């Protein structure tokens, strides 16, 4: 089946994309349509579609004379009721295309709008924005295809982005981030003292937040082929060190900070794959980081509860829990080092 598409692709492929582009800006009271098109073929098409004789004059003038026809072929609806569009300016833009503006009043209680063009026959991008919000949604439409319902009012974008990326950050730790889970457990297993755990987790969090931010701004960059084995090595290290050390030293804190920087670069790799939304990078980055912290807190909460439960049955937790678990973490870390190299 995969091959079939290749057979078909050559002789029955989609057409190339059109040279049309449409931008739709929606505010509380109005909708503005900006249509970009190549002048010459647009004039040919408008002349063909018009019942009147071919127009004369320069390109802009000829298109302006057909503005009513363009308006009648442009359909914007608010909650299924047609919006009356009024032709605005026609001018030549910096790309040499003509830019045709249409505006219409939106009812104040409109919930959704839809767009349809009966002027464009090919595939074209429709960019939709709300007011001065720089975020744009892009729809790829074919000919007279109608868009799905578009919210007439800008969603609380920042909050939605923050929440969405926070969820992504959380699931990147719980349940998907087994390597990060083991690292955090490695920190947890060093010593039962709460102050030591807090010191390590704080240092780790600060460090990975810094490197995540730097990486997302493009100030630091390391390929995944280096970062991923080093993260595995950090896991092996904390596991092994737990076997021979029971107190928090300043050396351990420095190492945890260094490892935190590495883990931050790992998180950045995930975020790069998803890509941050244009104009919303700050809530997205912040949300992702908060999600990661919540994921870590979740791991520590579960670990504390489990350890507390076990202490009721196991007298020597150091011998039967802390050391074997640390050894297992170390072994897993070594295994990952090998497989990621």
């Amino acid at each position, binding site marked *: 089946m995969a*091959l079939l598409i290749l057979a078909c692709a050559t002789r029955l492929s*989609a*057409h190339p994309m059109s040279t049309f582009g449409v931008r739709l800006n929606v505010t509380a009271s109005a909708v503005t349509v900006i249509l970009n098109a190549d002048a010459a073929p647009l004039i040919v098409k408008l002349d*063909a579609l018009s019942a009147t004789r071919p127009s004369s004059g320069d390109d802009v003038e000829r298109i302006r004379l057909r503005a009513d026809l363009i308006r009648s072929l442009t359909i914007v609806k608010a909650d299924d009721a047609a919006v009356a569009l009024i032709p605005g300016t026609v001018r030549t833009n910096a790309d040499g295309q003509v830019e045709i503006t249409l505006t219409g009043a939106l009812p104040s209680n409109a919930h959704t709008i839809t767009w349809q063009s009966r002027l464009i026959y090919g*595939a074209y991008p429709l960019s939709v924005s709300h007011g001065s919000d720089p975020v744009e949604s892009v729809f790829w439409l074919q000919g007279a295809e109608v868009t799905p319902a578009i919210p007439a009012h800008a969603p609380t974008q920042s909050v939605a982005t923050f929440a969405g990326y926070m969820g992504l950050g959380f699931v990147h730790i719980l349940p998907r981030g087994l390597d990060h889970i083991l690292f955090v457990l490695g920190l947890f297993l060093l010593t039962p003292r709460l102050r030591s755990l807090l010191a390590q987790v704080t240092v780790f969090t600060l460090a990975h937040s810094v490197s995540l931010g730097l990486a997302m701004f493009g100030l630091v960059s390391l390929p995944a082929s280096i970062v991923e084995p080093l993260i595995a090595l950090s896991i092996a290290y904390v596991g092994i060190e737990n076997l021979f050390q029971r107190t928090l030293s300043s050396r351990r804190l420095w190492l945890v900070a260094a490892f935190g920087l590495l883990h931050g670069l790992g998180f950045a*790799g995930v975020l790069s794959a998803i890509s941050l939304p244009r104009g919303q990078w700050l809530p997205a980055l912040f949300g992702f980081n908060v999600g990661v912290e919540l994921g870590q807190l979740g791991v520590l909460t579960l670990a504390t509860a489990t350890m507390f439960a076990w202490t009721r049955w196991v007298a020597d937790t150091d011998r039967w829990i802390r050391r074997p678990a640390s*050894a297992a973490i170390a072994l897993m870390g070594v295994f990952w080092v*090998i*497989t990621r190299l």
Partner: protein
Amino acid sequence: MRPKPQALRKSVVAAVLLLIVASAAWRAARADSLRTVPAAAVTPPGASTTSREGLSDTVAAMSAVLAKAPANSAAAVRLADALLRQSRVLNHAGLPVMAEAVLNRVLHANPSDYMARRMRATVYLSQHRFRDALTEAKRCRALRADDPVLDGLIGDASLELGDYSAAFSAFDRMVLIRPDATTYARVSYAHELQGDLAGAIDIMTMAESATSAHDPEAQAWHAAQLGHLHLAAGDTALARREYLRSENLFPGYPLAGSGLARVDMAQARPADAIARLTKSLETAPSAADFALAGDAYAQLGQADSAERSYKLAEAMWTSDTPEPAQLARFLATRGRRLDDAVRLAEEAFAVRQDIFTADALSWAYFKQGRLDDASVAMTKALSTGSRDPELLSHAAAIKAARTRPVKVR
């Protein structure tokens, strides 16, 4: 009793070493097993069903998977496959752009993902970016030299660029390694290009027989191809039968609709062709269909309607679905804007030297009265031995004009 620290340290070191050896062995074994998996054993995209609803379901399901895991390669490849199929069914050129974006996201996370790269080459073909497709397919070859799909991709791109010997060699390699429906379809096209229409029909029939019954879109495509071949061979009754079968297999299949209109025209039934085209142009306009409708109106003596359809064809080939070579052929054939026809054909021929672009160039020169240039371009157009009726009629006209020069305008 607590073990001594010294003994514990030794045990840990031993355990670590043991694990390193075991892991390395496991990894090597896994790599071997991956190497021996043939390309086709990878989960086939679009395997469930390719009906209109099936494609929509696949797009929705894979989009949902990718919303949660944007770097999921298998889902991205399946989504891209479904989007490309939808783009053929709907004539929607925006869908390959979306497919490319999906694959780019996966390849950003893992640039060496083979399946995603291979699918991206297919997407480039769909976007008519033949050189990009060729480059990507050759890069894939460096990763997996024995994948016959790459031969298909390289052959397809070479064919469109006019490098027929490279294309036919690639198809020959493919048929040796993997004789299946996709390979047969390509070989059939190679026969058609070389003028062996009977052979092309036989092989396309084999290709259709080898197509899964659960793949209605592919079945409709094969039936439409058979219709096209029978029409090229002059058997309009069989062509109609195949196009009707295609329409029946996949209701509303664009190729079937325009194919039937061509059969109507070939059977001198322009009014039927117009009735059929009016419906399809209303829902899914295409430049070729507008041009055909123009011809039908012209045959009926309706000059205004013909001119209107020709103008819409011209506008569409210029801006809605820009295809300079097609536009040049259209302008030259209908005697419109001949200077532009020559310019467009020359520009297109500089990019791709396939026989149809050569024919467009030749006919544009001919219409301008440049018989020597027309003859040179026609030699290239005839180089594969194609029996394409339009191409042959152009060749005959040029030959006649050269032996008995007349004013051609």
